């Protein structure tokens, strides 16, 4: 029996794959990869990136691009959920990010270094830019507000935290997901780690050479069934389970045996009350780095079998860091809703060391359940089980 207590009643997504969900689906169908050189800041590095283009001007916030992206996704999700004025409602806000959590304004810091004095505008932006706090305040909602900074699993963990809140009764509705802008500092940082692809990323491919950075935001509206019913809304999409586990292994490399990912998947499946063989497809973290794809691919193959339908959407969005979990949860839910998943962009040749290959073309998916996974810097692993609740 499908657990129907927490529904996904709204979704919003913005990334290089599209500024809206319909645009994103069209990009997926065309297998279009909107990568290019960095235009957001001056750089001598030549790694291609997946930038969001044509940000609607009404969302433009000077020096707060991550917040702009988040607000776009939030508004899309609220609109789809049919939620207009939400002030005073018991709505929790849980958002994942990386860039918005850091005071890494080069101009401010350079000025400080040079004259030991710096204008406070960058500091004010930072102090007033905590994602969950701003969104909660802007919407004037009652309910917990939390910004999760779990690196690349931030968005997935944020959605998992929101699921816990709803189940505990801390709120009736939750807005959850992740947002991150393309930023100069992580661009240099990932470059220094030697895991950025000078070409386009190729998740799970034999010849993969690393990741591409991207930006965007993905947000879901999670709602107790009772709340949705009261509003006369329904949705077949259900958030069924969340698992999170630490490798306790290394700051930047995943545990080779995938111990943390396995534990996360088991926890998420247990909470959902389903077995691995019931999972229709997995939207993998699939960054295109050697270590991630090797560990993740083999862990998924071990748990779900070699015939699992699996993909990485990072070939369309790049690695959007704190936004990735939010975006990929939305894409996973879309796969269930639409009944198809796109080709895993960038994949050509199976790696003999990975016992599983992603889908090479637009693929029909059946079944009631799908999983979205995240493996993060720091050894965090997280998984969400999303269902299409037609069996009730």
């Amino acid at each position: 029996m499908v657990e129907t207590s927490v529904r996904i009643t709204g979704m919003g997504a913005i990334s290089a794959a599209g500024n809206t969900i319909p645009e994103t689906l069209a990009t997926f169908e065309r297998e279009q990869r909107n990568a290019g050189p960095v235009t957001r800041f001056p750089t001598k590095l030549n790694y291609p990136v997946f930038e969001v283009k044509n940000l609607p001007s009404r969302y433009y916030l000077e020096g707060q691009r991550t917040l702009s992206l988040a607000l776009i996704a939030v508004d899309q999700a609220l609109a789809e959920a049919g939620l207009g004025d939400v002030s005073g409602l018991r709505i929790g806000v849980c958002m994942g990010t990386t860039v918005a959590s850091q005071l890494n304004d080069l101009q401010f810091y350079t000025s400080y270094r040079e004259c030991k004095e710096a204008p406070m505008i960058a500091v004010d932006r930072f102090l007033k830019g905590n994602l969950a706090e701003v969104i909660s305040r802007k919407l004037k909602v009652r309910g917990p507000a939390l910004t999760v900074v779990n690196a690349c699993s931030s968005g997935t963990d944020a959605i998992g935290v929101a699921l816990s809140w709803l189940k505990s009764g801390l709120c009736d509705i939750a807005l959850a997901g992740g947002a991150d802008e393309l930023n100069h500092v992580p661009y240099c940082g990932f470059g220094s780690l030697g895991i950025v692809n000078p070409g386009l990323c190729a998740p799970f491919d034999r010849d993969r050479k690393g990741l591409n950075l991207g930006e965007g935001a993905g947000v879901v509206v999670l709602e107790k069934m009772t709340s949705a019913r009261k509003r006369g809304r329904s949705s077949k999409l259900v958030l069924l389970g969340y698992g999170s586990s630490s490798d306790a292994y290394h700051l930047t490399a995943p545990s080779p045996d995938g111990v943390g990912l396995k534990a996360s998947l088991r926890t998420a499946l247990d909470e959902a009350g389903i077995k691995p063989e019931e999972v229709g497809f997995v939207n993998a973290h699939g960054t295109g780095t050697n270590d991630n794809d090797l560990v993740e691919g083999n862990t998924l193959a071990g748990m779900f079998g070699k015939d699992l339908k699996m993909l990485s959407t990072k070939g369309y969005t790049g690695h959007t860091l704190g936004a990735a979990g939010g975006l990929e949860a939305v894409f996973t839910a879309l796969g269930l809703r639409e009944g198809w998943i796109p080709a895993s962009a960038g994949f050509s040749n199976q790696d003999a060391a990975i016992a599983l290959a992603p889908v090479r073309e637009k693929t029909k998916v059946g079944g009631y359940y799908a999983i979205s996974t995240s493996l993060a810097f720091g050894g965090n692993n997280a998984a969400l089980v999303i269902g299409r609740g037609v069996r009730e």
Partner: protein
Amino acid sequence: MNVLGIGAVFAGGVGIKSFEEALVEGWQKPVDVEAKWAAGGKYPVYQANLDDVPYKTILKKIRRADRLSKMAVLGAADAIKDCGIGNINATNVGVIVATAFGAHVTTFGFLDNIIDFGETAVSPTIFSNSVHNAAASYVSSSLEIKGPTLTITQFRFSFQSALQLALVWLQQKRCDYVLAGAVDQIGDVLCYVANRKLTTAKDGRIRPFVFKPTYQVPGEGAIFYILGREKTEKTYCTVQSVMINDNTSQGAGTDITIIDADGMLPDESAYLACADSGALLAAYSPLFGTTMTGSAFNVAAGALMLSKQRYYPNPVHDNPQGLRILINSGPAHIASIECIGYDCQSKRAAVRLIAV
């Protein structure tokens, strides 16, 4: 949810015993650090004292970690040691690390790299340590904890949010125990910002009951808690509730109210409402400094008072409003303590602790 162990890293040293000693001894002057922008080239701070740290093996494991991560790991290790539960890391222990500014000092170090050496010659080690969840990662890897590990960052109620989530995780049996805590670091730039935006106490003395005008002295440190569903012999107290932005609890029936007033806000008069309940008022920020995660220290003071059944007097007694503040030390009969924080919009967080 029960408080089973507490670990502390602060200006008074490492260990909950050091914190308890500081509560008994009272106010100590902060240290002066060099600051080129400050009048006289010196600036007062409550800098964590990491001298004579007992956890040498753990420190060796994390030798590449930055100061923030080291403080977090030391606080976490100390909480585990304090709880006395053998092989706790063989159970499903969740980790929640709350912070306001995270690894900002290391982030500025990485910006130094970009400015000084260019984009292609930056240090991957510095970058790795600058990522916000590096501290939590060091906690889980050095202490071999494999449960859910989460880092949260808030400028308001960061620690209370961590505590609230720990309560939910334990209720939902996502973990057997939760290692939840807060960590924040001070550095040159943050001191500069604090000095620009707030009023610094020139004599180094935070006066939590003056409310307006307020005076701050930046502080840093880490406090971690082992939290569990079941009580142990060591149990300090029970966390009865954590309420954020919910004014239903107004301290009724509380013996002591500990307030987070620390000079972080230019006007802290909202705390005057805490006097209405008739409870004794306490504030311990003068021991650890002004920090957005200071509530974690105040909750530790509350847990210690409930556990030891003794009063710890306010370290600074300035009390122009004539409020009923805690000035006595010694044995006490304390059933409950509420720890209250207000943010700049007068939103409130309350952690209610009760005796075992």
